[in-house]
């Protein structure tokens, strides 16, 4: 690993009503890289992802340490709203709010009370450019976000997450509801974004993981089986279970 990690999980375990779904996972996510979490349904990869910005609060019990800038953000006294502004999330399906494209992008900023028009305008343009959507929507910023196509909506959601300038972006199967063309665009966008952001993506699509990620973590039944550079993990997996999953013998 060349850089210090952006976020580290140490002995994290998650249980829904005392039913364990993730157990004893320790993992350091490299900064400004794309890390893919792969595994079969129910392997705990999405649950682990949701721990990283406290989205399991009130849903599941999360134990262990999650360190971000030297702070254990899994501690109860941590301000979860600030955590979520610094560690943003994009979901399985596009989730535009029933507002204009412009208002969608700055939603998080408005929430923080930003009123400066020029700053908002600037953030909208920057964020949409980073999400590779600017050229398509620059003339219809006042139009409803719900008129966009699914792929555009998902890039809008990425832009909305970017607008609050997070350090880490979590994506939970962001292309599972999209067609191949839109998927390609999202993947290209993510590859651009890793220059400035740490990206952690859960995907069911192994090709997607191998195409875009630098690092891959393979999960099975709530446990981390193997974590390595993507090229290594896909070509020369150390664990037999990883090899079986990659070759389709499991799942």
């Amino acid at each position, binding site marked *: 690993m060349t850089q210090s990690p952006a976020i580290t999980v140490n002995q994290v375990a998650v249980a829904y009503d005392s039913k364990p779904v993730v157990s004893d996972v320790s993992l350091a996510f490299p900064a400004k890289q794309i890390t893919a979490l792969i595994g079969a349904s129910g392997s705990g990869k999405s649950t682990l992802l949701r721990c990283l910005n406290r989205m399991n609060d009130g849903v599941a019990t999360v134990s262990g340490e999650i360190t971000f800038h030297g702070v254990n953000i899994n501690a109860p006294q941590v301000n979860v709203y600030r955590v979520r502004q610094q560690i943003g999330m994009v*979901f399985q399906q596009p*989730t535009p709010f*029933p507002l204009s494209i412009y208002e969608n992008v700055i939603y998080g900023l408005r929430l923080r009370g930003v009123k400066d028009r020029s700053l908002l305008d600037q953030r909208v343009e920057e964020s949409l450019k980073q999400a590779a959507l600017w050229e398509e929507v620059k003339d219809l910023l006042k139009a409803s976000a719900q008129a966009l196509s699914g792929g555009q909506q998902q890039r809008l959601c990425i832009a909305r997450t970017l607008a609050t300038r997070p350090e880490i972006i979590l994506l939970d199967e962001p292309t599972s509801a999209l067609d191949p063309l839109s998927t390609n665009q999202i993947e290209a966008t993510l590859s651009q974004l890793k220059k400035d952001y740490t990206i952690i993506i859960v995907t069911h699509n192994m090709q997607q993981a191998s195409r875009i990620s630098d690092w891959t973590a393979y999960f099975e039944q709530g446990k981390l089986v193997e974590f390595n550079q993507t090229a290594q993990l896909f070509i020369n997996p150390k664990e037999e279970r990883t090899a079986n999953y990659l070759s389709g013998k499991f799942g």
Partner: protein
Amino acid sequence: MKKIELQNRLATILILSLAALAALIAGGLVGYLLASGLPHVSWQFLTGSTKSFASGGGIFDQLFNSFYLVVLTLLVAVPLALLAAIYLSEYAKQGPVTTGLRLAIEVLSSLPSIVIGLFGYLIFVLQWRLDFSLLAGAMALTILNLPLLTRACEDALRQVPQLQRQAGLGLGMPKWRVTTKLVLPAALPGIITGAVLSAGRIFGEAAALIYTAGQSTIAVDYANWNPFAPTSFLNPLRPAETLAVHIWKVNTEGLVPDAAAVSSGAAAVLIITILIFNLAARGLGKLLARWLSR
């Protein structure tokens, strides 16, 4: 014909004929009420006031009282139902408290309205010294409508996709803001529909009002807009006979020679108004949904 096809055909015929029977009963009832009532409805009937002994009395006061009671009741009931629904849909965790609350709401919805009326009489009219008044009536009707209204609001809230909430939380919104800024606006069409349907129920209710809003109407001044003045038409503490109560009263103890005509005319007006409420509920809900999802 194969046996399974025969069964299928028989079942279809049975279902269709039962549905037709239900429609026939409902349609026949409404048709009968309109046919026997509409000939007695005239402008004078709608705008005139009740007569005690002579024929030719109108229903203006009762009609106004019914509408005003709808407004008052919704003013009390909608906020209560909405808060209960928000709790049940957004905050309540599965457990004995939630189960108990749901059970209580269901039991409340099957209480006979006359029981609610007598309860209102004991508590609001006597205990709280509200006397026979619109306010006492509105509170009795709030109890009557709370279960269905809460259910309607809860259904509307639950139909908002879970991912919208997640998206809001993921941006760092506190839960109450997710609820008020994202969930509530999206659920508004359903909530409005529920409220308007409730309005129809309030309009048609009689039993719960006989002992709460009262069976008499005092002479009110429709030019006095001060709701605190005793004779103002807006005073919520005055007794007020509604249209449905009027129908009941004319039929049971009416002294006017044209009691039958007044009763059937009033019934026709009542049913048309409720029909309008129901159509408005659909129209308004659709319109709002379209407007909000622009």
